[in-house]
């Protein structure tokens, strides 16, 4: 059987969100068409999502025009980029903006070309100066700057 994994993947994702919408919203009162409760529209949308998901899975399996492989995910890049952002979030309120900038840059550079230590340090110095001047002093965003 030819499988179009892009259609199947999209269909499963929609279906998953639709199902979550139905399960997590199960407690919400429906009301009726004349006086809709908070659960009416969420259920409508969730059911439609499950429906679209089913059609896409159907198109990807039984009526697939061509075989399309499941796309390769770059787990390394995802982990490094999103991880560096999480690290920033974890550091910011504990140790301030400068430390958080350092952590974010130091982790994220590994997602690109082979990082060079000197370059990375220079980038951290330049960026932390820039953001402190622009955001904290220039735009007045309230943020902890220093670790102490």
């Amino acid at each position: 059987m030819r499988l179009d994994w892009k259609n199947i993947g999209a269909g499963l994702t929609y279906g998953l969100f639709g199902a979550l919408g139905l399960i997590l919203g199960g407690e919400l009162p429906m009301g009726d068409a004349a006086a809709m409760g908070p659960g009416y529209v969420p259920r409508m949308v969730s059911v439609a999502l499950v429906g679209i998901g089913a059609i896409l899975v159907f198109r990807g399996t039984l009526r697939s025009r061509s075989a399309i492989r499941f796309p390769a995910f770059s787990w390394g890049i995802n982990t490094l980029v999103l991880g560096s952002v999480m690290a920033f979030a974890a550091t910011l309120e504990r140790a301030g903006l400068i430390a958080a900038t350092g952590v974010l840059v130091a982790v994220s550079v590994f997602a690109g070309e082979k990082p060079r230590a000197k370059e990375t340090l220079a980038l951290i110095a330049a960026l932390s100066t820039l953001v402190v001047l622009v955001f904290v002093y220039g735009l007045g965003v309230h943020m902890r700057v220093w670790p102490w």
Partner: protein
Amino acid sequence: METLTSLLMGIQQAATPTNLFFCLIGTFLGTLIGVLPGLGPAATIAMLLPMTFRLSPLASLIMLAGIFYGAQYGGSTTAILVRLPGESSSVVTCLDGYAMARQGRAGAALAVAALGSFFAGTVATLVIAFAAPPLSQLAITFGPAEYVALMTFGLVGATILASGSVLSAVGMILLGLLLGLVGTDLSSGALRYTFDIPALFDGLGFVTVAVGIFGLTEIIANLEDSAPRILITSKLSSLWPTREEFRRSVAAMTRGTVLGCLLGVLPGGGATLSSFASYSLEKKVSKHPERFGKGMIEGVAGPESANNAGSQTAFIPLLTLGIPVGAVMALMIGAMMIHGVAPGPGVIKSNPQIFWGLIASMWIGNAMLLVINLPLIGIWVKLLSIPYRFLFPSILLFCCIGVYSLNNSVLEIGFAVFFGFLGYIFRKFDCEPAPMLLGFILGPMLEENFRRAMLINQGSYMIFIQRPISLALLVATVALFLLLLLPGFQKKRTDMFQEEQ
């Protein structure tokens, strides 16, 4: 006459030193992100939105709008010089623009692109000024039923006119609608999908969602395919097109402008569709269609005028109906709401200085862009040599700070990471993110109007076909769907975007 007086008032509003300054900042930033691949106007506007809290509403809207149309200018520069479209709306400019650059005519191509954009921007400003007031007049009579029909039309249009699979786009819209429902239900006070997280009681922030699926996802995708950039290093020859080239461009600019003004208003249309449509039109009317792709100046002049006209007339539905036609317009709605300006037909009456000031600023901004782009072209070209390994950590950092400053909460950064990964998954499955954001923004409005319309009519769906405007819009929606069933249309739709490959 009244329009001209109002426009003059708008120019006065836009020409205060502060507003001029923010217009300059906006157009400058727009050019910058247009030149830099991997950072689009949607992500930039989302990032900067929280910082505009402190500005006056007009200054912040002027700046954010400047980023949007400025990006169209900047995008063409990289398309011509390095065959790398800074924005999706400049994809077709690569074809003939880059060919011209290789023949040593880069200067002429850049000049024609900039002049065409300026011409289109000027015309589009006038079109907005004259078309918006009557439309607002009409829209002010709209009740909830009309709004439901209008939003349905908008959402369906956005799926059919965009590129990619229609079914997928419908799924993205529905997902956006569902995500838009997160938070407190306004009429009953019930909490929906909040997981007892207080930060979600007000709903997901659209800035967070946009930074995630446009900012973070974009960076991951760029890092994934690291195609080398080849810069044309030959000296920029004369900036001026020859008399003959100029004559041919003027006709193409005019056609492109008209096309862009029309298509920009359509949901899902905007700048990208306009430029693609203009390219195929130029090819069709030309006596030498075979020469396209080999350095035809019409292939630069037409699409570049069209995308700029389209990016500006996209403001018409936003300013008159309060309905965004694309992701960036959805963010502009958010910007208006942050400043307490309720988007919709009332804006022109309740906030005339904002309405007319914004329109006038677009013309001023276009003039600024001409100066920013033509004489300073050398600086922008230099910027291209900044390696991506320096750029992406900087963009990540700005994304983080932007999201954090929304309400000084690191939790928002966590949500953005979630949407960054979700956006990546969707990208892998060829699902366009723009319809999702559209659904997300329209979701609460759609639900509210839908519930109100049904309440007024004791739960009868007939209301939507009893009111003439609502009926007309629904018929138009059905007609859009029927278009898809026409045998020729599917092929046309694919052909339109085929130049991309």
